[in-house]
């Protein structure tokens, strides 16, 4: 399978934060959600892919090309939306579009026009007059209009209402109807991932917790709730992480079918959502 993105032992050291030798990859034709709490390192990874900051170590390949040596070719085939879209503040959307579109061979003016209408964007207005949501929509319209083979979207759904978010996600799965297109998007809105993402990469404190097909997580991981009897040594190996509350015990299991077989009838076993996993991760150790 051809890879859209391969990251190996990527490292970035800041004074108060280190991205610790991160590795994962995304096959062509799929959508990956990059998820994690604020400050986990999502934006750092994206900036490193985009070569906006300098890495300390490791390797990044996009379309099989080194992201530093092949930067020009990669960027001509890449659509990028920054977490806080920024263009020249005092220039109208129309003029920004005119400048940006020059960079792309496959610029699709007709598509851009239809997105502008659909997103309700005022082309004559200056960029700085736009709300965050509108800036995001404009940035998305630009990224979607040059037939990019790979979209990298940093928190594209933040500041957008649920209706537009849903439409955007549908548009993304529409894009990968063409199996040469790939999408990486970061988010902390986990419900966005539960729907469309094919792969989920969860990151915390600068480290990858897991990078897996979403179905694997969905079908294997579970939340178990029950009384103190769950603390028994014999169940211990079922649980990744276990917490006592004043009323009982809550645990994360990576093998929901074993839990269903083995645990006593009183235990409640639900599938774990990405949000559940993030909350457990925050409280203790989670490792796939």
């Amino acid at each position, binding site marked *: 399978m051809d890879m859209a993105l391969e990251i190996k032992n990527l490292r970035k050291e800041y004074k108060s934060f280190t991205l610790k030798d991160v590795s994962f990859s995304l096959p062509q034709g799929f959508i990956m959600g990059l998820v994690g709490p604020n400050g986990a390192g999502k934006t750092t990874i994206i900036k490193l892919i985009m070569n906006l900051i300098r890495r300390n170590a490791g390797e990044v390949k996009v379309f099989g090309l080194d992201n530093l040596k092949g930067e020009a070719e990669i960027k001509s085939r890449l659509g990028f939306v920054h977490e806080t879209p920024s263009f020249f503040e005092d220039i109208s959307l129309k003029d920004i579009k005119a400048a940006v579109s020059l960079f792309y061979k496959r610029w699709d003016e007709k598509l851009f026009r239809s997105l502008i209408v659909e997103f309700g964007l005022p082309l004559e207005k200056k960029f700085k007059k736009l709300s965050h949501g509108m800036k995001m929509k404009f940035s998305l319209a630009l990224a979607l209009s040059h037939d990019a083979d790979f979209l990298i979207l940093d928190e594209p759904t933040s500041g957008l209402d649920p209706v537009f978010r849903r439409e955007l996600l549908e548009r993304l799965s529409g894009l990968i*109807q063409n199996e040469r297109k790939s999408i990486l998007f970061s988010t902390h809105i986990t419900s966005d991932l539960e729907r*469309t993402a094919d792969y989920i990469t969860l990151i915390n404190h600068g480290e990858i917790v897991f990078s897996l097909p979403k*179905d694997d997580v969905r079908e294997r991981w579970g939340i178990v709730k029950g009384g103190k009897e769950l603390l028994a040594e014999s169940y211990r190996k079922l649980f990744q992480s276990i917490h006592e509350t004043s009323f009982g015990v809550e645990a994360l299991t990576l093998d929901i079918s074993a839990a269903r077989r083995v645990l006593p009838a009183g235990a409640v076993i639900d599938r774990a959502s990405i949000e559940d996993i993030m909350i457990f991760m925050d409280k203790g150790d989670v490792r796939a």
Partner: protein
Amino acid sequence: MRIIISNSSPDPIYEQIDRQIKAQIISGDLAEGEALPSIRKLAQELQISVITTKRAYDELEHEGFINTVIGKGTFVAVQNQELLKEKKMKIVEEKLAGAVSEAKMLGIGIGQLKDMLLLLYKEE
């Protein structure tokens, strides 16, 4: 084709798709040779992962319900009539087995069960 996905069902989504398509092929709602949507189209329509729909189609193909012709698409396979009949029988058997174990649990005897079945059969 009609597919309804439940997010609260304990069954994996690929299994839900697999089961529903299978049922429609067996009942004849999906006819032999009929084209199915591509895995990517189905994923988009249902707003689920491409990996999920691919897995459902893989299972169906493995079980002989559908065929994928590279470059053309996915179609309902020509069903072996004997096999189809057997599959239909199996569905009835499974449902009856469910009813039997339920009856045993509730302490309903075979005589009473037979009467119930007879009554229901005539009603239909």
